[in-house]
């Protein structure tokens, strides 16, 4: 890749302390994100997909300095983010903004819509008040809200409109990277399309870079340029959109894809359902071998003994599976 990626995350690990069982027992940790590396190119969208508890949100939060990383490096726009403090951290926060999943709980019910949108300008920038007002007004138009709605409170808006407020707030400081954490999963299907189209249009207009977290593969396929699939704190497959969806190599990716119910009858008949039984194993227990082995339909002895590294098997296509070699053929 010739171009420098906007965000690159190297060997990021986030761990949470567990309750000790007794006073003298050793401290134990849950590794929510375990040695994860990915990068997002400027103006593109990287989607992180996975089931709940796979660590996708935690990875994004750590990259944005909203939870503390235990190990690793996060480079945003050439700047090492993790050691930043004070004023430098405030500067960095202008460049990274978040759109949250639940538009009902992520807006302060006591603030008017325009105050919510203006908030990041006040706390993160030194923009003069008059200019703040101007920016707020412009943002309302850009996300498709009417000017007279600026004075309303969150409860007076519908779910889709609230998400528009959340988007306007995220764009207030003119960020370079916007982290969208399941931005449409709390919305009705018809409203989802409105918000997704808005996000695409804004990306085009402002040259935004999205880190798009979702469990909905249809939405991911529609929005992203590349995809990272996470399972239990690890990236198991990381590829550009075409390679991943046309040739999913990791058995977990294939299973995820085959689990999505489809309206397309021919597709449904063509694709065989790959059933992965059971639930993910207990994350507090340290795993030996491949974390997916206990549910993998093609797992072999070596999968249970050693953990497969994330290896590049084709340009822009990395997989962590013992059973995938350079020929890039799915083991299923």
């Amino acid at each position, binding site marked *: 890749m010739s171009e420098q990626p906007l965000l690159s995350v190297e060997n990021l690990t986030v761990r949470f302390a567990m309750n000790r069982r007794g006073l003298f027992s050793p401290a134990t940790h849950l590794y929510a994100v375990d040695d994860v590396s990915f990068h997002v190119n400027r103006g593109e969208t990287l989607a992180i997909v996975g*089931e*709940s508890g796979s660590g996708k949100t935690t990875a994004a939060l750590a990259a944005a300095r909203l939870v503390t990383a235990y190990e690793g490096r996060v480079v945003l726009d050439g700047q090492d983010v993790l050691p930043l403090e004070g004023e430098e951290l405030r500067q960095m926060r202008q460049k990274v903004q978040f759109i949250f999943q639940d538009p009902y709980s992520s807006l302060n019910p006591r603030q008017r819509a325009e105050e919510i949108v203006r908030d990041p300008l006040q706390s993160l920038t030194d923009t003069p008040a008059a200019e703040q007002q101007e920016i707020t007004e412009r943002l309302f138009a850009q996300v498709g809200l009417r000017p007279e709605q600026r004075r309303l409170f969150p409860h007076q808006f*519908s779910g*889709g409109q609230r998400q528009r407020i959340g988007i306007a707030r995220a764009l207030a400081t003119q960020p370079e990277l916007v982290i969208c954490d399941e931005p449409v999963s709390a919305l*009705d*299907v*018809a*409203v*989802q*399309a*409105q918000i*997704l*189209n808005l996000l*695409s249009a804004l990306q085009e207009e402002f040259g935004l870079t999205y880190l798009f977290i979702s*469990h909905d*593969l*249809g*939405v991911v*396929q*529609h*929005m992203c340029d590349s995809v990272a699939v996470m399972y239990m704190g690890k990236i198991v497959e990381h590829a550009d*959109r*075409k390679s991943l*969806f*046309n040739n999913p190599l990791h058995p977990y990716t294939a*299973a*995820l*894809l*085959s*689990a*999505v*119910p*489809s*309206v*397309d*009858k*021919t*597709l*449904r008949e*063509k*694709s065989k*359902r790959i*059933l*992965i*039984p*059971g*639930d993910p194993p207990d994350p507090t227990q340290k795993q030996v071998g491949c974390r997916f082995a206990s549910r993998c339909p093609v797992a072999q002895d070596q999968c249970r003994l050693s953990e497969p590294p994330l290896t590049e098997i084709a340009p822009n296509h990395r997989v962590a599976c013992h059973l995938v070699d350079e020929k890039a053929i799915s083991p299923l």
Partner: protein
Amino acid sequence: MTEPLLKVQNLRVELTTRNGTAPVIDDVSFELHAGENLSFVGESGCGKSMTALAIMGLLPEGIGRITAGSIMFDGQELTELSQERLRRIRGNDISMIFQEPMTSLNPVYTIGEQIVEVLLAHQSISRADAWAEAATLLDAVRIPKARERLKDYPFQLSGGQRQRVMIAIALACKPKVLIADEPTTALDVTVQAQIFDLLRDLRQETGTSIILITHDMGAVAEMAERMIVMYAGRIAEIGAVDDIIGTPRHPYTKGLISCVPHVLAHVTDEKQPLTEVPGIVPSLREFGKDQCLFASRCQHRTQQCLTARPQSVNFDGAQSADCWHAGTL
């Protein structure tokens, strides 16, 4: 044709709100045959769950009531039954699983006790037999080590397992109709696939009819034979799943299908913007008006749509759509 198991005719349910009464279900009629899987789709606030609650006799007390129409189940008129009789049918002949497996189980009882409770309430069997039956049921919904898991409390189970327990409770008395209200919305896709497989197998084994309420067209396509698209308390379109998804006649159905980014078999570089259905579902105040309630969001709207409620237009294969322009679109 045999007599349908469940026949709902011209059902009207009114909710009392601060702004007066609103018909949340407005002249809804449909039939459910034995062993059939019928799906309700639509956005939230369209009356899908209300229809289910009306059948179950579980409308919010003092707020919602059936004001017209009939619900015939297995030769009995449910709208006229006493609470006593209804309670005997509920959980026994008709049972329901809810959207949130986290909140619909009682956290202070073991799952075994909760399954046994249903069995003892509806069947004349001994306590010991009920516990044995509960283990069989858990086994049937594929929870490993069923006998030991009976002693677990809901918090010890994962979301998918809790939903399996809910299904076990719902199926405990071998109901004739199982109503599943968004059974997988709170679950991950892989778990959703497991639950759907389970429901499909159980239906094959027991011959239970299933009413599946969802907003996911993909789920409907995989699970159901017939479907009803609801909008603002009314039926927008009804018919066989393949017919409706193949050639949707109502503009709302079209919108619902095309506004969702479906996973494609083969991905190319180009990305098309999604077709939008502008606006949102009308508020309760609009319900019941003599006009097409979808008109405000519809691009094919004409004067007629605003002045009269559309009548159903029938197509081949028992597909019908309530739209003035269904025939020409």
